[in-house]
């Protein structure tokens, strides 16, 4: 446990002065600005107040830009390791590969939680500025919580890809393709079987009806699978294969 705490502390240290908070903040701001503007201009058609506003601000955020943001965060988490000979340095550290991966996953999860909370704050502010006076939707905490859980699944997958692919940009391109694959799976009613479509389902960006109990159980189980499997695979690879540190 001490080793994991040390690894987490090291990850936070590596993020100092990185200015990644700019990237984490700007995306939700733009999503809510555009979605809120669109909602305000079409209030005659979008009559379900908070629910309509959620469909506007959440659609692009949840479908494309949050997954790509997750990919950027995860690629950034491995950036220093891919520089110079840092892989050799980190593999000689007295911590296990599992602790290294888990620490990055935990820290990226914390960053994504902050993004979700910031997004929810902007959503509420946008609704107030648009003149919505009714109570907030009761489903909102569920959307945000399930969105974060799915974000953890996507981040596990993206961390696995970024750990093995030394390019910064390639995992992000893969993340974008995965977003479209997830959207396609959602359209063909397979949304509960892929992490990017799990985000769509969990955040209710295309359909704000909640998840029935049976589907909620499957949702949580699939998220658990996607959280565990990519990480387990990468940890095993790091234990059994040599690292490549040249560029």
């Amino acid at each position, binding site marked *: 446990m001490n080793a994991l705490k040390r690894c987490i502390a090291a990850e936070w240290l590596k993020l100092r002065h990185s200015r990644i908070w700019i990237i984490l903040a700007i*995306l939700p701001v733009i999503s809510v600005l555009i979605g809120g503007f669109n909602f305000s201009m079409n209030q005659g058609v979008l009559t379900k107040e908070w629910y309509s506003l959620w469909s506007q601000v959440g659609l692009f955020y949840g479908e494309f830009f949050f997954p790509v943001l997750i990919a950027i965060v995860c690629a950034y988490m491995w950036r220093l390791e891919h520089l110079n000979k840092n892989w050799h340095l980190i593999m000689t550290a007295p911590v296990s590969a599992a602790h290294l991966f888990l620490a990055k996953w935990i820290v990226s999860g914390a960053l994504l939680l902050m993004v979700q909370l910031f997004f929810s704050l902007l959503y509420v502010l946008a609704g107030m500025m648009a003149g919505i006076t009714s109570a907030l939707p009761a489903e909102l905490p569920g959307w945000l919580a399930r969105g974060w859980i799915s974000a953890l699944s996507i981040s596990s997958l993206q961390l696995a890809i970024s750990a093995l692919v030394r390019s910064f940009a390639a995992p992000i391109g893969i993340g974008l393709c995965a977003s479209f694959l997830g959207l396609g799976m959602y359209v063909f009613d397979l949304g509960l079987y892929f992490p990017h479509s799990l985000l769509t389902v969990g955040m209710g960006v295309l359909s704000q009806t909640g998840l029935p109990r049976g589907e909620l159980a499957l949702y949580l189980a699939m998220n658990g699978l996607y959280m565990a499997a990519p990480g387990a695979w990468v940890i095993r690879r790091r234990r059994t294969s040599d690292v490549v540190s040249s560029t």
Partner: protein
Amino acid sequence: MKLAMRNMRTALGLEWYKLRRKRLFGMVLLLMLAEIAWGCTASGMSFSRHPEHAGWEPLLAMFASMNGLFMPIAAAVCVSRICDMEHKGNTWKLLLTLNAGRGALYAAKYVTASIIMTAAVLLQALAIAAFGAVNGLEQPVPLLLLLRFFAGTVLANMAVTAVQQWISLAVPNQAFALALGMIGGFFGIVADLMPRGVRAMLIWSSYTGFSPVTQTFAGETAQFAVRDMGSLLPAMAGVAAAGAVIYLAGCFHVSRREG
């Protein structure tokens, strides 16, 4: 002059040599195939639901709209990959000791990225023609419309590539360049919802702005009309000029930096 041309050719050749085993072509191809698959699937579903609206114009409008999302991100990924290797390998200092000016190095990277993105657009245009032909669209393949689609997308790509290259070379941390690509993709999708004045200031709006087909809604029905080429020329000239200014500014800024 001859020496400058030879240096430029050498720099360009080296850029392509450096891309060996970087899997950049595969990455851009994957992004394009994902976009083509999505565009063809969406168009196919639309045509089967509304066969009376099947045609080349809706197909081109669909792809122009999707280019607004995909192309900025593809350009960001492509340019980031080409530029990042210099930051990561700390090879800038090494490059600057060569008998080639910084401007030539900057130009070589820009031309390389532009060629790759142009090839991607060509693949897309061929896929559109093939999809339409396979799906038995009544009209023959509209070569002029496809050529206009190709030219407009390439021009928009070149302007976006100029922006991305400036950021990718000026800021070693590629997260910012890719975030800009993502934001550009966002603006590319929602540009049509913005007022005309705001749209004119966003180069990412050019993907739909230069589309030869425009889409309007009459009630709930989408209507497609072919734009007059002449009406697009001033905007295209403006974006070309903006792209040139951004390229020159980026080249000047990067060339004047130490190491």
